[in-house]
């Protein structure tokens, strides 16, 4: 089962995503961290989060691009955090804009095909009314298309607002 979870900064989407993972019946909990680590502050942050998740039984895998390369047991639940980072890494630092949509979309579908459950965290960056310069606008458009395409494939779609999950798709609403 694939779940897509979105929300603004500080909305509580990560905590809700972890709850979804903990509710999965899969034997292994794998956290797929997509953030590029820059400098000491990032490193300390990552260490702290890694420690917090270890207590919840997560194994952390860092994969900033090409998520299809990640190997894991089939009875796993994966938490990919997050799509906005992965998309930025792929476009600005990876193989670039050419074919980026298919590359990222297929990478995630590959994870979904091999995992028991997949939870994808994405980001709400689309309602600030700002007209961005070309490259940023292109990035936002790509992320919005990925969000839509994944929502279509997902079994459940949630928007988290003030820590409250709004269920846009799926019958799992009563569980939370």
């Amino acid at each position, binding site marked *: 089962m694939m779940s897509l979870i979105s929300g*603004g900064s500080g909305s509580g989407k990560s905590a809700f995503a972890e709850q979804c993972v903990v509710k999965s019946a899969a034997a292994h909990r794998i956290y797929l961290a997509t953030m590029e680590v820059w400098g000491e502050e990032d490193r300390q942050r990552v260490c702290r989060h890694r420690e917090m998740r270890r207590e919840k039984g997560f194994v952390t895998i860092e994969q900033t691009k090409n998520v299809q390369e990640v190997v894991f047991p089939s009875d796993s639940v994966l938490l990919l955090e997050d799509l906005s980072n992965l998309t930025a890494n792929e476009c600005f630092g990876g193989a670039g804009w050419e074919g980026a949509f298919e590359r990222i979309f297929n990478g995630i579908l590959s994870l979904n095909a091999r995992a028991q459950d997949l939870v994808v965290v994405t980001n709400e960056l*689309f*309602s600030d009314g700002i007209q961005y310069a070309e490259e940023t606008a292109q990035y936002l458009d790509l992320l919005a298309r990925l969000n839509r395409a994944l929502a279509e494939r997902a079994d459940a779609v949630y928007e988290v607002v003030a820590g409250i999950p709004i269920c846009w798709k799926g019958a799992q609403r009563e569980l939370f």
Partner: protein
Amino acid sequence: MRLIIGAVGQGKMLYSMKAYGFEETERASSFEKASKAKCFTHLESAVRAALKEEKDPFFLTEMLLQNNPDIIILCDEVGCGVVPIDREERRWRETVGRLCCWLAERAESVERIFCGIPMRLK
């Protein structure tokens, strides 16, 4: 009149074409052309243009609804960012929000689209 709102890139256009059965050629994105169209897209841009020309978007909308009471209006949600420093930007953003409130009160239905998925608010 129906109002369909949602953030940029959420698939409002594709959804409304499918849900209400109209073609791309039947949509307009200015107040003038919208009087004969099935669908008025990017109301937020039309509001920007109207403000620039010192026209009242509420008056233009009221005229539009008199001429075309069954129109489907699509508008981007633009109000969830830091308050813009630029006065005109602030004015635009707030006008779009208030116009959506005004339209929502009069609309037969209001839907919000998120990742291509509709939620009926009214």
